[in-house]
């Protein structure tokens, strides 16, 4: 950040690029330059065009106008492999792994080290993977299949893959959205090393503190247009927010005090062998309870079992005093429970169906009479929530799959909020959601709680947990190791319990 960059030639740059999808103009005349040894952040609201820009650089999309330059020379990428050959490594927003292949094969697919006669050298593939994983300091086995990995673990595999390229340009589209502080710290360590060795980095995140921690320069997009490109030095978070949103933002964590009522959700000795053990807790009306922990602690598994998507081996779930039958999401829904799952692309949404159909899916019996569905009611329900969550879309009849990541997340929220639940379980509710909307979601959760909703929130975003929760439950290796009231929940106390160092919680292993 101390060398003068302007004199140098950018390693990779985009000039005046435009890209539209049908009527949606995702990018309009955007330019961007990446320099060796510089980490460059890309900021903007959901649907601003960040991922589209990255896909243009990665050769996934061909720009309608404008050009991509490598070392100052214009190039045409005919596909992702061209970009890869030019030394560009990309981590996409949504992990796209081969579920049936091992971690090692995922990382080296198509570029495995070879031995005689062009045969794949399986041993060096595994060894190289081991080394990469150790570098990231995570706990993954190279020979493990990717099917069943949590979103966070998948993201880590993607990161390892990108690192394995030894690329000149490293592009990362929200790599940290699913990660907790520890993994993020690790990742940043590795990225800094790379940058110091001369790699150009392009980084996207909706967590502003990460941008300030890692990057030297930040470019802001709004509605597909370039707003500004500044050095991070001397920029404040408020400046950045104003550039992104076009206005000042109110409070990010508008926590309203709520009157805590009776127990809405009671979980008793819930166990799913090999995943989590003896989990008990209550969530009361009006209360926001956060479930914190490291990646892989089993938080998602617990809420899935509570909702009945997974069948617990032992233990009960009570909603408003009534025991839920095990393993039945339908029954849980009928009892007023809603679950916003962590993997929106697999579990949250039917990507091929339209926005309105997705939102309608949770209320099919309420959209008409005698089993029939009335289109007007269906559309009304969707339009209502699209406005409330500031959804950015073209038409309600568009498939959800074409929405930007954050907007997809909003549709998942809409789909569940529309059921007017008594107990709302949200797993990473703001994953990939921009800062403006995040505040909106927080306000919504908070006001719903104030109206008497019980909220159980799983989040890897520690500031979010600390600011929003009335109570924090911390999990470590499948057990609840601490229960911290709002007053006692601090970064230190939560992390201590999450890593199993707490005095209060018993150590699992």
């Amino acid at each position, binding site marked *: 950040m101390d060398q003068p960059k302007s004199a140098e030639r950018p390693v990779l740059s985009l000039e005046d690029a435009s890209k539209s999808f049908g009527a949606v103009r995702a990018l309009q005349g955007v330019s961007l330059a990446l320099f060796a040894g510089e980490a460059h952040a890309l900021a903007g609201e959901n649907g601003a065009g960040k991922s589209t820009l990255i896909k243009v650089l990665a050769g996934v999309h061909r720009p*309608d*106008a404008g050009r991509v330059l490598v070392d100052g020379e214009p190039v045409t990428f005919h596909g992702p492999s061209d970009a890869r050959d030019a030394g560009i490594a990309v981590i996409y927003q949504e992990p796209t792994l081969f579920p049936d292949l091992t971690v090692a094969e995922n990382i080296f697919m198509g570029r495995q080290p070879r031995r005689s006669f062009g045969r794949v050298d399986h041993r060096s593939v595994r060894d190289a993977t081991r080394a990469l994983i150790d570098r990231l300091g995570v706990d993954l086995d190279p020979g493990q299949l990717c099917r069943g990995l949590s979103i966070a673990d998948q993201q880590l595999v993607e990161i390892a893959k990108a690192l394995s390229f030894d690329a000149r340009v490293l592009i990362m589209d929200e790599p940290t959205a699913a990660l907790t502080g520890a993994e993020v710290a690790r990742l940043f360590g590795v990225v800094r090393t790379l940058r110091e060795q001369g790699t150009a980095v392009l980084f996207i995140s909706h967590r502003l503190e990460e941008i300030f921690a890692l990057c030297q320069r930040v470019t802001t997009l709004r509605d597909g247009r370039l707003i500004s490109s500044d050095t991070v030095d001397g920029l404040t978070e408020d400046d950045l927010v104003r550039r992104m949103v076009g206005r000042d933002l109110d409070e990010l964590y508008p926590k309203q005090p709520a009157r805590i009522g009776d127990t809405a959700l009671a979980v008793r000795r819930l166990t799913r062998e090999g995943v989590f053990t003896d989990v008990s807790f209550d969530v009361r009306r009006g209360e926001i309870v956060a479930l914190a922990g490291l990646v892989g602690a089993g938080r998602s598994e617990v809420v899935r079992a509570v909702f009945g998507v997974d069948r617990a081996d032992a233990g009960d779930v009570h909603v408003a005093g009534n025991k839920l039958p095990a393993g039945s999401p339908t029954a849980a829904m009928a009892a007023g429970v809603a679950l916003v799952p962590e993997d929106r692309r697999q579990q949250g949404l039917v990507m091929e169906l339209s926005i309105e159909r997705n939102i309608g899916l*949770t209320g099919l019996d309420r959209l008409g009479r005698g089993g029939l569905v009335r289109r007007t009611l269906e559309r009304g329900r969707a339009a209502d929530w699209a406005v409330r969550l500031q959804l950015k879309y073209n038409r309600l009849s568009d498939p959800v799959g074409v929405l930007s990541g954050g907007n997809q997340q909003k549709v998942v929220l809409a789909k569940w909020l529309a059921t007017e639940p008594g107990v709302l379980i949200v797993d990473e509710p703001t994953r990939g959601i921009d800062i403006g909307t995040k505040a909106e979601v927080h306000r919504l959760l908070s006001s719903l709680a104030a109206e008497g909703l019980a909220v159980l929130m799983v989040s890897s975003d520690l500031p979010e947990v600390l600011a929003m929760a009335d109570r924090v439950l911390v999990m470590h290796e499948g057990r609840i190791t601490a229960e911290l009231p709002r007053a006692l929940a601090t970064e230190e106390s939560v992390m201590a319990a999450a890593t199993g160092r707490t005095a209060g919680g018993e150590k699992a292993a």
Partner: protein
Amino acid sequence: MSTKSDLSRFLRWDVAVGILLVAVFATGAGTTEGFATTGNLSFALNDIAEVAIIALPMTLLVVAGEIDLSVASMLGLASAVSGKLWESGWAFETIVPVVLAIGVVGGLLNGWLVTRVGLPSLAVTIGTLTLYRGLASVALGSNAVTDFPETYARWTSDTDTVLGFLPYPFALFIVLAAVTGVVLHATGFGRSLFATGAQEEAAYFSGIRVKRLKLLLFVLTGLLSAFAGIVFTLRYGSARADNGQGFEMLVIASVLLGGVDFDGGKGTLGGAIAGVLLIGLLKNLLILNDVANEVQVIVTGLLLVASVLTPRVIAAALERRHRRAAAAV
């Protein structure tokens, strides 16, 4: 994925099949003597009644992302059992419910293996295709039972008709089709089918009882296949174990031709029905013109290939134009 969704906006294949159907009909009426006569059309419609009836639940099943290859065997089993029972002196009024119950049980077995044991439906129903056909030959051996009473047989003939040209089986099909169409396209159940076919996990997370729904569809398919077996038996006046052999491919080809996507989650019932009618009428027209059987086979194949290729080619052309237009701006 993006191109697929663009495509659905630009052109719907099911509509195209409908247009093609009308075109075939008009060509036939204009060029071929004896095609557009009541006698011939009644016959042609009656001739596809069983396939059409089975195509209805098959469409639902395919939309939900599954497939049933055992339908023709179930038809054969139903036929053989009705023959066997009739031969041993049962009343026809008792035979029908018994045979329909067999259809339900067969569907339950398919559905159970797919939803509870978790096997792929293609594999399961290839197995039951063999099993049900085998049971049919166990039931009736090499006999053929033929002496069905005229009182029942007339319900399936193409000379005793509704409105002067609609044979009863086809009239019944129209009623069933109307019901199925409403269920698929206007009810919550139908919405659930699309969601399940497109993304089962997400549907399950939305509280849809994915397994129960699929089980129900398999049962429905079994039931209607058995029913088609009864119609077939009466229509030909012959109960045999090998009745309807190979019909599964015909049903599937028709549904595919109608633009129902075998990956699940896409398609319309209208398209499927247009597909059935197109294959049926085209065959009738080709035979009337003495076109050799092998050419009919080739035409069916070409139609299938065209059914998926044409929309793609058009979409690609549109995209190229769009790209050029965008670049020119």
